């Protein structure tokens, strides 16, 4: 740990930029997945509440 912090001034900004970008990319993908899921689950619920069913749902029900 000491060696890492001792070497921070030399090229540390390059390492930080890469890891920050990785966090941004991973976080962005996760956020998109969760937001889209929420929207689509809500839309499905609204359609079902309006009495619209899938063909396979009618067979099951």
């Amino acid at each position, binding site marked *: 740990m000491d060696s890492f912090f001792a*070497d921070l001034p030399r090229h540390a900004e390059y390492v930080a*930029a890469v890891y920050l970008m990785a966090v941004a990319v991973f976080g962005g993908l996760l956020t998109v997945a969760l937001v889209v*899921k929420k929207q689509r689950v809500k839309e499905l619920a609204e359609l079902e509440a309006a009495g619209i069913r899938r063909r*396979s749902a009618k067979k099951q029900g």
Partner: protein
Amino acid sequence: MTLYDLANPTRFLSLVERIMPWLIGATVLALATGLYMAFFYAPEDYQQGVTVRIMFVHVPSAWLALLCYAMMAGSSIGTLVWKHPLADVSAKAAAPLGAAFTFLALFSGSIWAKPMWGTWWVWDARLTSFLVLFIMYLGIIALWRTMDDPIKAAKANAILTLVGVINLPIIKFSVDWWNTLHQPASVFRTDGPALHSSILVPLLVMAGAFTLFFIMMHLMFMRNEIYARRIRAMRMRAASAAQPHANVTAQIREV
């Protein structure tokens, strides 16, 4: 449970719901372990210093970019040959993930190149072929968005994806076939890895963590795509019911 059982999207969604908490837990644990090893276990390189830690993001991203494309190619065969109902869902869900990993590999490589090579970019075979991979991903995503009908879009994308497979061996062997600034393979070699275990182990842990993250995100994106197709099918059924003579039901393939 066989692949044929998973052809049922409802059963697939149920499986995703069951395994997702475990997958999230395993991904978080693997990422935490990998990051700890990358910063506190792996030593600095005697020449590259602290910048060697960029490798723990760069190399797994590049591997995942290639793995994702190979998986999309497999899904494309599933679409064209077996018409598996989830094959095109899988291919469509993987494309943005592949683009993200390819971008991360290009970005981290460029950042790493500046202090080590003295330049952000060179038009050598490895970097250029990887940029072509990124453009392929963007093209595939654009083609998915161009067509409303998912069946037609799936066939067109499957063909485009399979054509693009030619780029994978070019990327892999570009460092052997041409003179490049990029170093040759140092892990997957016939005479074994060229890396010391203190670097290799954290690299493999990070690669495992990235792979788990990819699987987790892929399942999430597939679930969202199945929901989107259900919404589309329900809207088309509603439109068909409102206009009984309209031939919209012919275009519906429920998932």
